[in-house]
């Protein structure tokens, strides 16, 4: 009966899916970005091939999204904010292990960094990472267990501590103090933004630089101040075609073209306009980006493999500083 039902239902849904159609499963705060990029790609695809393409979007914390794909969410492409979340898909056999070699810049068309957004006039004088652990400062960022955004914040704080000369124990203490100042852990970056901007909770929101720009603009009346710390962590935004799904749906070509498009001058300009840092010279020069010293996962944290093994694995450092506090 179920089979009949499922078939009947898929027939019912069929007219909605016309021509080329791909699903881009992405991280939480990328919604507005892809709302702008998708029509630009659709126009280009139409010009190149004469075919129409519709691009569906799904947004949530990127680890949550990876889990959903593992459970069968039919994503043709993923545009995530963390290497580990695509590695998980590779482990699940949905795409090849060497996915980082399929697109330029290790499959990361743009990058950003965890930055701060503080309330009008910066009353708590928050300029750098150690200001976040001061007594009486409330910090808002999403759950590092479900959100790549939150995980970057955690890793950035940890890397910052190591960079100041602290050892692992010292860095853990620092992160513990930071977590103790967090009143709410939302599951995605956007929910954290709502908590900070809409519900008025916390003194500082830590999220991607690009998101801080977007919120400052959207809530201009609240006078939020963007603070880019002198030192932060390079946040890459890796992309991949989910081979298994794309092959089954016959969308490999359009999916690949879609991701290639993210590297084109046109898309890079859209990205830079939205305060993502890009590799395209013209785009980066057309917009202003504050100077920042970027630490990397490779240099300080033993690469993504080291991060996965030491920090994110069950019972790892994140578990110890996060869950047990």
């Amino acid at each position, binding site marked *: 009966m*179920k089979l009949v039902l499922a078939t009947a239902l898929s027939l019912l849904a069929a007219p909605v899916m016309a021509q080329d159609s791909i699903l881009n499963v992405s991280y939480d705060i990328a919604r507005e970005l892809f709302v702008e990029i998708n029509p630009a790609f659709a126009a280009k695809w139409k010009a190149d091939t004469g075919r129409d393409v519709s691009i569906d979007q799904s947004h949530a914390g990127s680890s949550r999204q990876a889990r959903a794909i593992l459970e069968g969410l039919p994503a043709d492409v993923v545009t995530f904010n963390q290497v580990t979340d695509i590695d998980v898909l590779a482990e699940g056999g949905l795409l090849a292990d060497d996915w980082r070699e399929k697109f330029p810049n290790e499959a990361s068309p743009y990058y950003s960094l965890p930055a701060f957004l503080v309330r009008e006039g910066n009353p708590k004088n928050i300029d750098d990472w150690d200001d976040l652990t001061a007594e009486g400062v409330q910090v808002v960022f999403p759950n590092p267990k479900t959100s790549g955004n939150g995980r970057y914040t955690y890793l950035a704080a940890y890397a910052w501590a190591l960079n100041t000369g602290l050892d692992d124990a010292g860095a853990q203490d620092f992160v513990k103090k930071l977590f103790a100042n967090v009143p709410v852990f939302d599951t995605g970056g956007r929910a954290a933004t709502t908590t900070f901007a809409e519900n008025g909770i916390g003194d500082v929101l830590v999220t991607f630089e690009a998101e801080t720009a977007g919120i400052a603009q959207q809530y201009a009346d609240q006078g939020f101040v963007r603070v880019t710390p002198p030192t932060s962590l390079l946040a890459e935004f890796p992309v991949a075609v989910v081979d298994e799904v794309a092959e089954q749906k016959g969308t490999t070509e359009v999916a690949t073209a879609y991701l290639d498009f993210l590297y084109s001058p046109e898309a890079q300009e859209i990205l830079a306009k939205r305060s993502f840092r890009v590799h395209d010279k013209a785009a980066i020069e057309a917009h202003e980006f504050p100077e920042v010293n970027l630490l990397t996962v490779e240099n300080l944290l033993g690469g993504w493999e080291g991060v996965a093994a030491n920090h994110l694995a069950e019972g790892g450092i994140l578990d110890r500083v996060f869950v047990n506090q």
Partner: protein
Amino acid sequence: MKRVLPGFGLSMGVTLTYLGVIVLLPLVALVLRGAEIGPERFWAILTAPRTLAALQLTLVAGAMATVVNAAYGLLMAWVLVRYDFPGKRVLDALMDIPFALPTAVAGLALSALFSANGWFGALLEPMGIQVVFTIWGVAIAMSFTSIPFVVRTVQPVLEDLDTQYEQAAITLGAHPFTIFRKVIWPVILPSFLVGITLSFARSLGEFGAVVFIAGNLPMKTEIASLLAVIRLEEYDYNGAAAIAMVLLVIALLLLVVSNLLQARALRYKAKP
């Protein structure tokens, strides 16, 4: 006894197929998954501080909500059955709103209402009372979504209650409170308990309304079903399944209790 009426096979077939496919099969999937965890790991998950805190919050907030709903439900049932006043019909219809209104909508409205810029929040904040992101918010959301249970279980019993005993007691000069305690209370008690049990069960299971208003601060305002979802999102299937199993068992226990109480309530009613 020979079955006179037709349709036994058909109705049995339809009922069992539906229950089997829609209800039992998914529950079996959960139980099988839970069985894979192994007792030691299961116990470790359940006794982890965060799980315990979530279960405790869920039970305590559920109890708070149920106390409020018990008092409110009794009041409403009494007022709706015993008194006549303008607007009574509307008031009666309003009782069902929390069932008809999607819980996400309730959550959205309540969280905005109690946040610093909302109608209630603007009143409470200056008095130093914070509701959003505290256990109070959780309890309020649970309370709202289970308002109708006590009202709707006590109301019919109160309606059926013969007033002649009360009249007799009044003639004998008994104090109204004594009448309530001795004459009315014993009759409505079983249904009242059924209502409380249902209300409590619903509060424990409520998700949509609570997540909007609670925030999810581990150890403080994270309800058990949300923790199960978070575990799922963290790829921690064992954790999710274990917590879900516990909630399932609690729900089944409450269901059995309410059915037993219901049977008792019916027996009470059947007595002439």
